[in-house]
Each structure stands twice: as C-alpha cells, then as structure tokens.
C-alpha cells in the first residue's frame, strides 16, 4: 500500500499544481484581511456567507481538491501506467485507498492552513471558532477528494465535469435551492462548522451536527466504494 501512496504523492506534487494551490489557498486569507480593514467590517453571518461558505468551502477547497484528486487516477489512465498497479496482486482497495489518502495529504494542508489563517484573522484568535473552521474545511477536503477520485476513474473529462459541478451545483443550486443543500458537500462542511462552534455560528444552520457527521461518512464511504467497484470492473488501458 505504501508503494502506491508514495508513487501517487510524487505524481501529484508537480510544480504547477503546488503554485496554483498556493495562490488559491492564499485568496481567502487576503479577502479576510481586506474585509476587516474596510470601513464597514462585516458581521459574522456576512463573513461566513461570503468567505467561509462561498469562497473557502464552495470554491477554493473544491477547486484545489479537483486539481489533485481528479488527477489521482486520470493521469495514469491518460499515460497508460495504471496497468502497473492493476497488474499487481493487491486487492483493489489497496490501490484506491492510498491514492485517496495521497490526494488528501497534498490538498489537505493547503486548505487547512488557509482555513486556519482566515478564521484566526477574522475571529481575532478565537480558538474554538478557528478549530471549527479548520476541521470542517479538512472534512470538506476529504469529501471532495473521495468524489473527485471516483470522477477521475469514470471519465476522461474529470476536470471539466468537476468544474461544472463546483460552479452549478455547489455554487448555484445549493446556494439558492433549499433541497439541494442536502446533497451539497459545501453545506455538510458548513453544518459541521456550526455544530463544532454553535456559540459563534448558530444562526442559519441547515443541518444538525450528528446528521452532518452521518452524511459525511456516508458520502466519503460511498464514493470510496464506488471507486473500488469501478477499478474492479473497468477496462484498464
């Protein structure tokens, strides 16, 4: 398993990806600083809606994870090296799980640091709020990674379809259609944040903490199982 993990780490840590991820991860921090310095400082509710939910959980995190997790299998399918792994006697989960973990290992720190700095600046060092934002961002990374790893296995257009999903579903429908929030990773992460720091984020919660945790586990496990199933049944080029 470690061989697949370290191989994937090396494959996914290309220079351009690191640069793009760094720029994207820095955006919420910069926006938070600018908002706080403006003459009309936003309320917690406004800050959550614009920066934490809209930008970090709804755009930056999925984009960063898409660039990483979407390529975990897609690159190997494209350059036809996936057979090196699938022609090994490893059970298929021992290929999928390390690839997913490698994607989370690379994308996670960028989003975690971004969430930590953003919330630290915005909430003036409030430890509980900072932890709530950072943990929920990391959970969001894991959920998006699980979904995009699967997407990279089922289509060669993972990046394009992933972008459409981020813009249309997470950005548009889940923001305006109440029912769509039940199927939105962004809203699972936000619900988790609300549950971890109800004191600061209580208003406007759409989902209980318990339900958010259950749904997060189901989504993560579901896409993981779908990826394993796909790898067992697909034709490998």
């Amino acid at each position, binding site marked *: 398993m470690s*061989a*697949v993990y370290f*191989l994937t780490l*090396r*494959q996914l840590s290309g220079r351009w990806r690191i640069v793009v991820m760094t720029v994207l991860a820095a955006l919420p921090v910069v926006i938070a600083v600018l908002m706080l310095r403006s003459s009309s400082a936003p309320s917690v509710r406004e800050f959550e809606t614009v920066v934490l939910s809209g930008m970090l959980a709804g755009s930056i995190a999925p984009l960063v994870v898409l660039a990483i997790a979407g390529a975990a299998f897609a690159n190997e399918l494209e*350059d*036809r*090296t996936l*057979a*090196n*792994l*699938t*022609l*090994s*006697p*490893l*059970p*298929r989960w021992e290929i999928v799980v390390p690839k997913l973990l490698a994607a989370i290992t690379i994308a996670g720190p960028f989003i975690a640091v971004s969430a930590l700095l953003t919330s630290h600046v915005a909430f003036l060092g409030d430890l509980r709020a900072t932890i709530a934002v950072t943990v929920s961002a990391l959970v969001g990374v894991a959920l998006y990674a699980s979904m995009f790893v699967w997407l990279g296995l089922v289509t060669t257009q993972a990046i394009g379809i992933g972008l459409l999903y981020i813009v249309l579903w997470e950005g548009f429908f889940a923001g305006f259609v109440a029912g769509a929030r039940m199927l939105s990773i962004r809203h699972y992460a936000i619900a988790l944040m609300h549950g971890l720091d109800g004191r600061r984020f209580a208003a406007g919660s759409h989902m209980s903490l318990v339900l958010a945790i259950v749904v997060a586990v189901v989504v993560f496990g579901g896409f993981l199982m779908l990826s394993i199933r796909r790898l*067992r*049944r697909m*034709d*490998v*080029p």
Partner: protein
Amino acid sequence: MSTAAPAIRVDGVSRWFGSVVAVSEISFDVMPGITGLLGPNGAGKTTLLRMMTGLAATSSGTVTVLGQPVRDNPPLYRRLGVMSEHETVYGFMTGRQFVRMMGKLRGVADLEPAVDRAISLVDLADAQHRPMDTYSRGMRQRMRLAATLVHDPEILILDEPLNGADPRQRVHFQHLLRKLAAEGRTIVLSSHILEEVEQLADTVLLIVNGKLAASGGFRAIRAALNQRPYHVRVMCDAPRRLASAVLALDSVDAVHVDPDGAIVVLSRNVLDLQIELPRLAQSAAISLRRVEPLDDSLESVFGYLVES
C-alpha cells in the same frame, strides 16, 4: 499430443466495441514454451492480450490462466508477468527505483536481491541509477522487462516487446526469452514482424481481422507462405520478348504485359525466380531496369494465409 493442462486457455472469446468486432470467437490453449501471437497492426492482438491478462473484459467467452479465471483475480498476478505495448514509464524514477517499486507491488519477499537479478538479466546494471527519462527507447523496454521479471513469474505475456530495440538488444532479448522458456516458463509474445516470431516462437497463433487465421508450428505456416503466389513487376528494354521467354521457366505461372511496357510475372516459387530471371535476361541480351514485388506487404501475406 500433450495431456498436460494448458497454462492459458482462451475459450470462445470475443470482444466488441459498439458495432466493431475486435476479436471474434477465438479459442486456443497455450502450453509452456514460447508462443508467438502474430498479426498485422489492428488485427486484434493487443485486445486479445489484454483479455488474457485480465486488463479488459471479454464480451463473451472465458480466459483462464493456470486454471483460474484471470479477470478480477489479483492474487493470480503473483504468477503472471505482463509487459504492455505502452512504453510510458515514470520518468522521475531511476530504473532501479522502478523495478524495486514493481517488486514491492508484487509482494516480492527478498526484494533487493530480486531487483539485482532482474536488472542483471536485462544487462542494465550500469544504467540502473539513472532517471528513466534519460533512457533510450530500447533501454526503457529492457528496464520494463526487468520490472516484469522481478517477481519471477511462471507466465510472461509480452506485447510487442522488441519495439525500439536495436539489433544487439534484439539478440540479447531473444537469448533471454529462450533461457526463460527453457526453465519451464510459458511465454506469449506478440509481434507484427514475421521474422521476429519465426526466430523465437515454438508455436504461432496468427490473428487476422480479429480471428484466429492459423495456429501451430512456424514451419507449417512458413511452408504455406513459400507457396504463396507473388506478383513481380519487371521493367526492361524488350518486354514482349522477355514475357515470352519467362513463360518457359518452371517458376513462372503466368505473365502479362502492362500498357506502360512493364511485365507482371506471377510466380509460386519466387526464390527460383530470383535466380532464373537475371540469367534468362542475360542469355537473351535483355537489359533489366527494375524488378519489384507488387504484394510483399505484411497485410497481403496475412491475407493470403487467411484465404488459404
């Protein structure tokens, strides 16, 4: 006839992609030794090999390797070594790192000695610490073969393994495969080059248009090839005189004169024709300007074998 169980059994296998039939109702057994899968480009060799390795599903029929279904059977890969036709490698790895990783993935217990052995088998010890993106095409192929051999598999399936190899590397590769076969392994290799398979394979499976056109020893197939009629186009300064003269040769079946003045000779014994035609021209004081086979392409050779 051998009663031993076949190492690989392909039973009524077909594969289609939409309305395109890539492989159609193919059945054969593969026994230990070297089996050559021969056919022109696009004949279905790679699709067939991918089904034999479990990389692709069959549309119908079954493939068993060592008595077990090969599809969705990862433990079987401990006993199977596969080298695909794709030459992409992890360019950021050294050759040794690549072979070591493949050994680790295949559960090799005593890894470093196995890596040493595999790399020395392909004679690349000197280059093993260089990144693979600095290798020539032939070196990459050899290091990929080392990675295929690192877990000492009983069965080797090699898709166009000699691609990119220079003549010296080809000879080395052929010696190595013969040695591995002599140790009792089953080796299946594909090629679109007749001579390549002729030099190596004990048994030949000829695939044309997704069908098994012929199978058996290479001698039988070569004999069929030697009886194949050839059309040879001859340009000379006295075509009508040469046409009537060559009809007397035993190696010539028919002759006709083209409107452009060339004569086209039909021969079933082209080896004799090569000797007799210049002699005849010399004795008749006819100058030969050009002699060329009209249907010497591989596709026409395979086509003939299918028709016959």
